[in-house]
């Protein structure tokens, strides 16, 4: 896992990004990694941006955080050891460089020496050790499993720190991009006590400082004038004075806020609104591929409708992914075939099983299984119109193959419980926001007994391949393992029915410049600026 090899994985994304970005003339034209302004006009300092989010941030403490939306706030307040650039490449952040030992069991980081937390405490190797140990050992830590491969953290000198691993673990660096790699001021955390996760005052070192948060109303962040980041001309970042994050649950109200000028940025836009928003002269819409996917989860457990994997394949054959992508997502999600997204290094662009719907083939396969006509119950979250629309479309598509799918709406909380226990009778729908490394997209969904393996799937050969992909740091070997595994868990003995890959979206006011979508779908305001 040397730096050079990491660069490869971004290549595919860069190409794809360029394609999608066309059609938004006047908008940002893509930014240089970490700290590049990249816009044609000269950035100016100052101004306040209101960013509307689909849900309120629950936990500011990365140790506690569970919800995806939280990370939109984390990325402004905290710095991680490493970060990704808009192409998905892992690049330096608080760690200036890193090296992996020959046996793959020790990763050593050289740290920046000019970093201070917002409360004034300096950042150093001791701080890294304290943070990582806190994530690993605190009772109830949501990061403990991310960092489980680490046996010990060793401070070599004030700005050098080594992670000693129990066994080689290739995806480690990718997990340090996110919450498990975010560094917090010990003083601020200890001063915050039980309320720290709601009021992370002074704890970060990132481009913006936390000022205040009123639950379900707003979060205020202000410019960290002492941030270490610089733009490509060497000017200090960030440019913006203030960011106000407003949680607005209702999709249409959220986008309407941008139309009316009450907000300047959003990154979760319903597909059906995109067409209308593109025609708004005051707004710029950008979209690029990301790591997320959506899937139908059948219950593969013994005694349930999809015990026989061939029936899962029949469903996979019968559905029309293109129609779903067009009619439900309006092109904001693209037909998908598995867990490994086009932007992942392990992706094979040619891997498109079930590209065309084949209701006749599905019908024949169900007949071959010989258990009579296939009929199952699909659980859908009550009150969510996109899921309902999707389920009703799938229902109609499966009908063409004589597969009967009955819809049952339940409250979200109830569906989760059934999923977790694998006690739903037929199938449910689950999306995944995506992770930088394909391992993060695959292992926990597919490996026997893993936490997100909601289809209760188990295939010894797949487990072996996924283990292999973790222990070798050679990217070619990892890719080979992933390719072999995906063929099995998607086609030969399918764990789920994957139907779309997600896209990162960014909707901004035209006068808000410099922002680009990242493949993880999260926003970074460090290079954003307002045209006067």
């Amino acid at each position, binding site marked *: 896992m040397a730096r050079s090899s990491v660069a490869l994985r971004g290549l595919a994304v860069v190409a794809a990004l360029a394609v999608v970005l066309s059609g938004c003339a006047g908008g940002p034209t893509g930014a240089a990694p970490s700290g590049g302004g990249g816009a044609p006009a000269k950035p100016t300092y100052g101004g306040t941006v209101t960013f509307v989010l689909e849900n309120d941030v629950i936990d500011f403490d990365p140790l506690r955080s569970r919800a995806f939306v939280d990370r939109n706030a984390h990325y402004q307040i905290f710095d991680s050891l490493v970060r990704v650039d808009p192409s998905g490449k892992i690049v330096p952040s608080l760690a200036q460089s890193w090296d992996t030992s020959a046996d793959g069991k020790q990763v050593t980081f050289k740290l920046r020496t000019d970093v201070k937390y917002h409360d004034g405490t300096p950042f150093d190797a001791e701080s890294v050790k304290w943070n990582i140990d806190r994530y690993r050992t605190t009772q109830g830590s949501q990061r403990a499993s991310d960092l489980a491969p680490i046996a010990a953290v060793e401070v070599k000198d004030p700005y050098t720190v080594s992670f000693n691993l129990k066994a080689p673990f290739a995806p480690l660096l990718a997990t340090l991009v996110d919450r498990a790699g975010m560094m917090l001021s010990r003083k601020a955390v200890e001063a915050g006590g039980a309320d720290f996760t709601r009021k992370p005052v002074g704890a970060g070192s990132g481009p913006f400082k936390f000022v205040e948060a009123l639950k379900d109303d707003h979060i205020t962040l202000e410019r960290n004038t002492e941030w270490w980041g610089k733009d490509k001309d060497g000017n200090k970042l960030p440019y913006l004075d203030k960011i106000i994050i407003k949680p607005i649950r209702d999709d*249409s109200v959220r986008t309407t806020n941008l139309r009316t000028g009450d907000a300047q940025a959003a990154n979760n836009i319903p597909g059906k609104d995109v067409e*209308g928003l593109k025609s708004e002269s005051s707004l710029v819409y950008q979209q690029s591929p990301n790591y997320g996917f959506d899937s139908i989860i059948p219950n593969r457990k013994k005694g349930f409708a999809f015990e026989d994997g061939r029936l899962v394949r029949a469903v996979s054959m019968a559905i029309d992914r293109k129609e779903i992508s067009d*009619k439900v997502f309006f092109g904001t999600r693209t037909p998908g075939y598995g867990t490994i997204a086009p932007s992942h290094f392990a992706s094979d662009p040619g891997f498109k099983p079930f590209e065309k719907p084949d209701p006749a083939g599905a019908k024949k396969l169900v007949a071959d299984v010989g258990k009579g006509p296939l009929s199952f119950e699909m659980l859908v979250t009550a*009150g969510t119109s996109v899921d309902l629309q999707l389920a*009703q479309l799938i*229902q109609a598509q499966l009908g063409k193959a004589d597969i009967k799918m009955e819809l049952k*709406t339940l409250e979200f909380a109830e569906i989760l419980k059934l999923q977790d226990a694998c006690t739903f009778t037929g199938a449910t729908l689950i999306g995944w926001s995506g992770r930088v490394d394909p391992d993060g997209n695959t292992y926990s969904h597919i490996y026997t007994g893993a936490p997100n393996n909601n289809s209760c799937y188990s295939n010894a050969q797949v487990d072996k391949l996924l283990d292999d992909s973790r222990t070798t740091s050679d990217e070619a070997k990892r890719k080979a393992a992933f390719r072999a595994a995906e063929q099995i868990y998607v086609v030969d003995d399918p764990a789920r029915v994957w139907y779309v890959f997600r896209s990162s979206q960014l909707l901004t006011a035209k006068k808000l410049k410099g922002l680009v979508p990242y493949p993880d779908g999260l926003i970074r305001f460090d290079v954003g600026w307002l045209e006067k």
Partner: protein
Amino acid sequence: MRSWLRRHPRIVIGGSLALLLILAAIFAPAIAPYEPTAVDVSQSLEPPSGAHWLGTDDLGRDVFSRTLYGSRISLSVGLIAVGIGLGIGVAIGLVAGYVGGLADLLLMRAIDALLAFPALVLAISITAALGPQIQNAMIAIGVVAIPLYSRLTRGQVLALREREFVTAARAVGARSTRIVARHILPNITNPLIVQATLSIAFAILAEATLSFLGLGAQPPTPTWGADINYSRSYLINAKWWMSVGPGLGIFLAVFSFNFLGDALRDALDPRLRRSG
């Protein structure tokens, strides 16, 4: 009867509207030009036209047909929920008012406890606890309506209990059930009819609200509240027709029962008019 109706034209108007609605619900399969659940994505999001009077939704389903079918859910919830509330509520009110004593005290405290909840919060909680299904929405709305009837009935019974014709019946040794059935119930029918009509309006509104929140009937079953929620996100894209059908449906149904209830109140029970 005819001359009575002539003296109360509002009853005729409200009654005809309600009747029209009931007929539409009964004959929906005959009137509706399309299957309400038939998906045809090639026809999605069509604006109103001769082929689709109220346009089509995102799955190409005919909005007019769905609105028409939606009346079936709304009306059956309205009638059944009110039936539940009326039946249980009147029974409780009769027992509490007629038997009195400890039974009265206990029953009325239980009713107070139900009344202590804001109606919608109670209905949402009950439906969530029982599971989001149309039957459970009926039960929840019915339970919420119970206190109304039991207090109304009890009040009337208390007022009647000491009246001459009841005391006389008791003096000649008539059994309680007979006294209730022969003397008390007939005397409280009018206020109950008025209240029930108004409650149907409330129940239809409550069902629409519950299904708007996703706690009503299961899709693809067409219901007004759920269809408005489903299509609200299209409203901002100027695809207004998806919401108009169900919105008008709720409005008309609630309006006609409110109007009828109001007219009945004026005609049958002038005393009630004062208390709004």
